[in-house]
């Protein structure tokens, strides 16, 4: 046993009175302008169990932390209370200071006297409340026991669900760090929607080359195995120790592209790029098969699907001259090379002279204006990528087919990223005519009056013309459809994935934990989280890969020890705690021997326990407690608060 552990054990001997140190922060005046810090110190010094009280201008500064560490190292104190800002800001800071001082980080209690006191109370009342809160924290601290984090061995393996650009990028990044990856893709192809595009905005690079490069990086690494035509059908376990069931099925004939080179499929030429579909990495399965994969983390890269306009929305489905942007991209990609001077754009066998683009189709929908889905939801979000993609297409049309005029009907132009605003400027130089409409006055697509040279006309109440209605004969209408979350209801149900109001998967915190789901070990990559362009999706995927590598890198996963613990002597096996438990599998009843008789008692799976305390409330025997938040600790806090009130 090391000296350190020996010391710790000595201190936490039953009977040996804990020595609490109380450290109060001025927060540079934020606290001390309203709270009499010195009075709090002197009042606390009278409290039984409190050994030392100190105050400092900034307790979180290096000298402030040194103060605490010195007292701990010298053995003056063995429980620490810091009274400062909210624990979300600096609790971890001070726990780490204790670790550096050679102590257990869980002998620490935090009192918030800034947000809960000095920012909201003033004068004597502020000082009185601060004293009460710090006394309560000290009372609890005296009853804290050293705890050990829960350590779970981590399977050095990641499963990535989805083989689009985000999935491929995450796979390549993880394998590059020596972590084995299984990539599960629903379709027979890799590359997702990106593989269906021609050139990517704003740089104009060929989409198939980007996909090929990402796929090559993943496929060439022996640590990456890819299962196509497959879906994840079950998930068990917890971070570090997940088990996934993956089911592979022969694709239905209707799901297969007509132009799929059957010879290539039959011969199983891996790595073939099938235009419009993506990379075919493996032959199609001929029979269904199911396998189970043990993995430490799961990265969701399930992507998006383009919004499908309702029949009749801007004439979609009614006139063949109304197409979506992805359809236009295919049309442009398939145009025959033509000699100058006047190349003709041909759609459905007709020469096109004027095209109207319409933005925000299926995006930025507004309650009361747009029709809700049967479940009452609307796509209220901006799909972010469509403005740039539409302008990119407009410029391509004007440059390749100078005789074709483009009319761009928008609500707002949101070309937000590097190199994207330039596309808007270029569109002006390319003489794209912009019309701006309000959501409640959407453009009307209708058949052109008799005698018109074009089959359709677009009518717009144009705010750039001071609200006058203008009309234009057009030969083609292109709908700038937005992104919707990929259709993964089974995964959401099975993995209990949190979804936001926009129906995309929702991270824990957009800034602090941007690629993590609330369930530990599940990570997000790409457009399953929100609309993104290819660059952003790859960036998010790289970030998820780094997070996954950080989780798996140590070979075990450490979790906070604030989980339920059963006192086997008290537990009578009523099973009430199981009924109250919010997380399946966190509690179970196991057989045991009690006074020579076979019985049952509750057992906690610490990796799954949320530490919520629901079980504590229902146990008639008081046999279950949450570590770090035991009932006697709560009682001590309440006593301290009430005692203070009586004294006052």
């Amino acid at each position, binding site marked *: 046993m090391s000296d350190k552990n020996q010391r710790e054990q000595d201190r936490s001997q039953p009977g040996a009175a804990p020595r609490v140190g109380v450290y109060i922060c001025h927060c540079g005046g934020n606290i001390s302008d309203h709270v009499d810090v010195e009075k709090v110190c002197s009042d606390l010094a009278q409290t039984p169990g409190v050994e030392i009280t100190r105050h400092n201008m900034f307790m979180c500064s290096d000298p402030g932390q040194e103060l605490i560490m010195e007292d701990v190292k010298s053995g003056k104190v063995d429980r620490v209370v810091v009274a400062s800002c909210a624990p979300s800001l600096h609790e971890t800071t001070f726990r780490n200071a204790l670790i550096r001082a050679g102590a257990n980080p869980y002998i620490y209690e935090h009192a918030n006297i800034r947000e809960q006191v000095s920012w909201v109370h003033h004068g004597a009342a502020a000082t009185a409340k601060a004293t009460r809160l710090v006394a309560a924290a000290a009372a609890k601290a005296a009853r804290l026991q050293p705890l050990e984090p829960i350590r779970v061995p981590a399977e050095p393996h990641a499963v990535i669900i989805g083989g689009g650009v985000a999935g491929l990028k995450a796979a390549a990044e993880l394998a590059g760090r020596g972590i084995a990856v299984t990539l599960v893709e629903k379709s027979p192809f890799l590359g997702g929607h990106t593989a269906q595009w021609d050139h990517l905005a704003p740089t104009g690079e060929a989409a198939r080359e980007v996909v090929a490069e990402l796929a090559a990086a993943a496929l060439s690494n022996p640590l990456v195995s890819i299962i196509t035509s497959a879906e994840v059908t079950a998930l068990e376990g917890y971070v570090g120790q997940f088990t996934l069931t993956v089911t592979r099925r022969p694709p239905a004939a209707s799901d297969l592209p007509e132009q799929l080179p059957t010879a290539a499929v039959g011969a199983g030429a891996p790595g073939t790029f099938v235009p419009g579909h993506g990379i075919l990495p493996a032959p199609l399965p001929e029979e269904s098969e199911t396998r189970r994969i043990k993995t430490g983390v799961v990265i969701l890269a399930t992507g998006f699907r383009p919004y499908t306009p309702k029949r009749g929305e801007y004439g979609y489905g009614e006139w063949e001259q109304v197409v979506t942007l992805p359809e236009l991209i295919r049309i442009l990609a398939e145009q025959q090379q033509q000699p100058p001077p006047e190349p003709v754009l041909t759609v459905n066998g007709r020469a096109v002279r004027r095209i109207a683009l319409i933005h925000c189709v299926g995006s930025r929908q507004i309650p009361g204006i747009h029709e809700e889905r049967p479940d009452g939801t609307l796509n209220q979000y901006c799909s972010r990528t469509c403005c740039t993609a539409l302008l990119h297409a407009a410029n391509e049309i004007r440059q390749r087919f100078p005789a074709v005029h483009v009319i761009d009907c928008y609500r707002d132009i949101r070309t937000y990223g590097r190199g994207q605003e330039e596309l808007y400027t270029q569109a002006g130089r390319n003489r794209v005519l912009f019309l701006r409409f309000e959501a409640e006055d959407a453009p009307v697509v209708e058949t052109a009056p008799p005698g018109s040279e074009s089959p359709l006309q677009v009518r717009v109440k144009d705010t*750039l*013309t001071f609200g*006058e209605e*203008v009309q234009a004969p057009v030969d083609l209408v292109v709908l700038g459809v937005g992104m919707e979350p990929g259709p993964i209801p089974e995964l959401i149900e099975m993995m209990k994935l949190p979804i936001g109001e926009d129906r995309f998967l929702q991270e824990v915190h957009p800034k602090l934990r941007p690629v993590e789901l609330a369930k530990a070990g599940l990570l997000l990559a790409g457009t399953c989280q929100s609309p993104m362009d290819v660059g952003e999706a790859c960036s998010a995927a790289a970030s998820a890969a780094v997070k996954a590598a950080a989780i798996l890198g140590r070979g075990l996963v450490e979790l906070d020890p604030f989980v339920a613990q059963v006192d086997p002597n008290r537990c009578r096996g009523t099973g009430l705690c199981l009924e109250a438990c919010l997380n399946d599998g966190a509690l179970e009843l196991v057989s045991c021997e009690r006074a020579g008789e076979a019985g049952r008692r509750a057992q906690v799976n610490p990796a799954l326990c949320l530490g919520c305390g629901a079980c504590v409330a229902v146990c008639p025997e008081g046999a279950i407690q949450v570590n770090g938040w035991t009932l006697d600790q709560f009682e001590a806090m309440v006593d301290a608060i009430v005692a203070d009130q009586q004294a006052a």
Partner: protein
Amino acid sequence: MATISTQFVEELEHYGVDTTMDCFNCGTCAAICPLIYEHFPRRMIRYAQLGARERILEQANDLWHCLHCGLCTLTCPRQADPGELILGLRRLVVAEWRRADHV
């Protein structure tokens, strides 16, 4: 209702204006114009972009309110030369009148 004519911009080139579509309708020209008159010259420029010939001819006399002072051209953030565009529209309208006189 104004009907868009995408060819009008090319016609304006014959009257010395090739910056019509550079305008992004910010309205700086109308804000700085000493006339303070009915969104002048922004509205006219907008009609030129749309190719709304009939609107321009209906309101043609408004073109001659312009003082040719050049403030709009100086301050235009897109170098769309609004002053020259108004001059170009005057030339186009004068040509229309002359054609009509000769008929």
